[in-house]
């Protein structure tokens, strides 16, 4: 599962960890993360995230 990085502040979404604070369980693919998810560090929406290519 791919990680996704916030274009604005650099925070990385790790699907293996999820974001329990926003009800995103560990193991949730980025595509399945709800549309109203916001970056926990700077507040931008999913549209400002890009995939992390290894």
């Amino acid at each position, binding site marked *: 599962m791919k990680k996704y990085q916030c274009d*604005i*502040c*650099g925070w990385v979404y790790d699907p293996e960890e999820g974001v329990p604070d926003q009800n995103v369980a560990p193991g949730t693919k980025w595509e399945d993360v709800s549309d109203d998810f916001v970056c926990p*560090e*700077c507040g931008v929406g999913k549209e400002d995230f890009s995939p992390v290519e290894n």
Partner: protein
Amino acid sequence: METLLKENINWVGFIDWNIRDFHSYITPRGATYNSYLIQDEKTALIDAVKAPFADNLLRNIKGLTEFEKVDFVVCNHAEPDHSGGLPRVMETLPNAKLVCTEKCLKVLERQYDTSGWLTHIVKDGDSLSLGKHTLTFIETPLLHWPESMFTYVPEAKLLFSMDAFGQHYATSNRFDDEVDLSTVMEEAKIYYANILTPFGRRVAATLEKAKTLDIEMIAPSHGLIWRSHIGTILDAYHDWATCKPEPKVLVIYDTQWDSTGLMARAIIDGASQPGVEAILLHIRQSSLTRIATEVLDSAAVAIGSSNLNQGMMPMAGALLTYLKGLNPVGKAGFAFGSYGWGKGAPEAIDQWLRDMKWDVLRDPIKVKFRPNPEDLAMCREAGELLAKKAIEIHESSVSRID
């Protein structure tokens, strides 16, 4: 006024003696917008002051060199207190290229007409030689904006840290050893509390990076330049960023007929224990700036308001909005307040504390109209609990290795 930092590196900024409200941050000591000029085979200006003072900046530059000779204008941060002067600066310095990140340029484009500006885009890790001095760029997203950046000059062992390590303190002195250290540290703490509290993790990561650099001087964008007390400010930033509070209790309240006031005073009575500093603040008698500063290094905080129209008093709402945005972590506390009938303030404040993920020590203390002796005894006991918790939190944070 002495402006020399190192050979061929001068402060050329502006002292704002009279500013007292810096976008709602109350500044009794005024502020400065620091800009610096490095004169080498090439000449670079570091940042541009606030718009109304651009001509003062230009006059300072003229006192050191000709406008045609300035090759670069580095923009470390797009916020108007540092970028506001850019339009005037870029139109006056005919040969200057704006040096900034792609991200920063995008923000500048949303604020100014940048169409005529020559640019030299940089990114984290890039460097730009001026001759004997090399500008190296360190992106510091969310210290405190996404596009914020530091510029490090290894040959001068000088870090231009933008807003980090800054203080709002207008003085003719430029260096940390020329003023009373406790005053600079107080202003640095106020600055951290009101501007950087939300970004503790980023601050901690930046401090780690800074350890790898050879630094003899830190020149922030506001206030005094660090050269004699670098260790002191870095240690303080580390404690604030890794949430190492003092054994300190803060009680904050608003009240209509002083019933919540009586409760607050009983709580602070109980909290005033040996080994603990306890402070009581009335929300409408204190600025949000002051309250946020006291919250920064408090371990335990109680917040109270009487009911007004089924909710809390409006300035209590303002305070909680401000605190939630600053997101201070690792605090313990509880809510309290007087009510006449129905639910309202104490329950609402309690929910805010839970939303901030504080360790809520007890249910909200609610008193109907006027507290009686039993109510006040309960408040004093709750204050003792705050004191006990404050010592525990302080001691466990001190023994943590971060």
